[in-house]
């Protein structure tokens, strides 16, 4: 306690110098905490979005059907597979949507009935497309809230007719807009309509009954990995064991990739911040060396009256560590303030930037280590002084 008091008194006796010494550590800690917290905040937001899209969803794209194209009937057959929860085909086109003189460009999705579950869509009104709609190529559609508002004028529009690409469709359902973070700005601006896959094939020159993209999810008692392995096996059997004929990607893979990117970014930015902390540590060592020289007489007095090497080492080491930890504390406080400001500035993105507890602990630990490492040499230099030489230093 006495040593700590002495360290604080010594630091307090030259406040400006102590602050300038700490500045390197303050900047280093701020760089570390702010950058890593920003990366974590952004990653968390992206990961949440990916999860909200359907965590168990597997996306399959077929690039070469080897003369055995996937048909809707195949999807129905695969739906019965015990490892797979469901399969939903999709294709997308853009058409002009019209209603009572209003015209809008609409993203029209040709889908099968399981699309609703696999995408985790929520119905605001009515129902989603049924298997019978797909089988009978019916002209019914499900539209999103935005399209209902923009084209029809209100969301309570079940039974209303709109034209998509010149064909009349009856609205049977209105789907809630997805307002999750990163997709919010994109999806809210898009006007979407969902029609039976078979109906879209009739309207479009490019869409065919040969399905090239579909979603799969796992059965309730199976993992996404099981489902991924199963659909891969089915497709390998179908496409002559050609792994390049198709790609299978799960949301887990996406999330893992995102996490890998995030980890790499965290390490990169953390590393850069760590370098500034090390530079700050060198500043601490420099000042501690000056302090030891300035206080040679004090060291001599303390050694003369019986302070051994350990006591002097502890005194100067503690001073270096206290300097580092004070810098660390100020740095963390300022980081918190800066993150609050950034949070307010980018509040429209719905990304939360909070002080990351782990990175704060890492910063504290790293600063402590820097205090020890860079304080050790000056402290050791002080501790090794001969009392007589130190007492007579400078005459």
């Amino acid at each position, binding site marked *: 306690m*006495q040593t700590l008091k002495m360290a604080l008194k010594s630091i307090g006796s030259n406040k400006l110098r102590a602050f300038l010494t700490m500045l390197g550590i303050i900047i280093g800690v701020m760089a570390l905490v702010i950058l890593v917290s920003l990366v974590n905040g952004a990653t968390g937001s992206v990961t949440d979005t990916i999860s909200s899209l359907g965590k168990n969803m597997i996306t399959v794209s077929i690039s070469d059907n080897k003369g055995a194209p996937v048909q809707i009937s195949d999807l129905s057959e695969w739906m019965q597979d015990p490892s797979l929860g469901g399969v939903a085909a999709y294709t997308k086109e853009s058409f002009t949507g019209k209603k009572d003189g209003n015209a809008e460009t609409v993203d029209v999705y040709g889908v099968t009935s399981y699309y609703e579950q696999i995408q985790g869509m929520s119905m605001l009104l009515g129902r989603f497309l049924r298997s019978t709609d797909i089988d009978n190529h019916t002209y019914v559609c499900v539209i999103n809230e935005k399209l209902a508002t923009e084209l029809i004028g209100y969301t309570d529009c079940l039974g209303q007719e709109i034209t998509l690409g010149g064909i009349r469709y009856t609205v049977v359902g209105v789907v809630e807009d997805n307002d999750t973070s990163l997709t919010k700005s994109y999806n809210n601006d898009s006007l979407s309509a969902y029609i039976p896959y078979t109906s879209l094939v009739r309207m479009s020159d490019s869409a065919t009954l040969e399905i090239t993209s579909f979603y799969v999810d796992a059965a309730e008692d199976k993992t996404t990995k099981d489902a991924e392995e199963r659909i891969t096996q089915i497709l390998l059997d179908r496409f002559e064991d050609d792994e390049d004929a198709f790609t299978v990607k799960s949301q887990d893979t996406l999330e893992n990739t995102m996490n890998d990117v995030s980890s790499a970014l965290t390490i990169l930015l953390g590393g850069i911040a760590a370098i500034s902390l090390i530079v700050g540590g060198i500043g601490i060592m420099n000042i501690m060396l000056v302090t030891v020289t300035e206080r040679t*007489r*004090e060291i001599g*007095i303390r050694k003369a*009256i*019986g302070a*051994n090497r350990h006591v002097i080492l502890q005194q100067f080491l503690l001073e270096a560590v206290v300097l580092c930890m004070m810098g660390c504390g100020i740095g963390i406080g300022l980081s918190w303030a800066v993150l609050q400001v950034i949070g307010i500035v980018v509040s429209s993105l719905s990304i939360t930037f909070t002080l990351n507890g782990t990175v704060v602990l890492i910063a504290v630990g790293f600063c402590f280590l820097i205090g020890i490492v860079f304080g050790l040499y000056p402290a050791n230099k002080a501790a090794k002084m001969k*009392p007589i030489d130190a*007492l007579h230093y400078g005459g």
Partner: protein
Amino acid sequence: MPYRRKTVRHLFIREKHPAPLPRRESEKVDRKTIIKTDKLSKSFSVSGKQYHIIKNLDLEIYEGDFTVIMGSSGAGKSTLLYALSGMDKPSLGHIEYAGKEITEMNDDQLAVFRRKHCGFVFQQVHLVDSMSIMDNAISTGMLIGQKQKDLKKKAAALFERVGISEEMTDKFPAQVSGGEAQRAAMVRAVINDPDVVFADEPTGALNSAGVEAVLNVLTDINNEGQSIVMVTHDIKSARRANRILYLEDGGIKGECNPGKYVSGDKKRHEMIRGFLEEMGW
């Protein structure tokens, strides 16, 4: 009382041909040895040249004595004091402290030895500037793990004895006079109840009032049984001693034992003056 003069040469060969030192004594008293040196030597090397400051010195310091070491400049007084106190290691020879060899101790062991057995007062005040007078005084006690509360209580009593008020103990060394700071240093020197207080020209940087105050404190604590070894070149300070050693050319040229200090004792003062004149002072 007669005394014999002895040449420097005799001192160096007294191991083989022991001869008594020139000595003035007021009375013979049986005293217990607290420090004993055996062929103590200390040399320094400057620019490749060796300087032998202390040469084969055999010496005993007695418990309860106020021993003063005098001598001309460069005689090795301070070097001897620092060697006796374990602050500096001798080049050759041995030092026994209460029967315990200290020359074989390493730096850390010597530090522990100093904090337990020695008290120090230096010519320059040598208080830590960033600590209050009180904190400086108790710093030695803190080193041996005594409770701060007990130390402050003890220090307060000592401060009162040396004439430093309670309010002054909260001040920093730069805020008090040289004499007051030196008296505070003396409190620090005795707070651990050391076996010996080593004082290196403690009055050298003080005005006459400060000198008197410091010498009175030293005399008082010696009268209570505290052993003191003091280096001085000041005859006024030397008068307070009951034993004066005169150092010359790395050896003890002569010794005077005038007995305990009594203020105004002209006979005693004449004896010391005579001894110092004899030594060439």
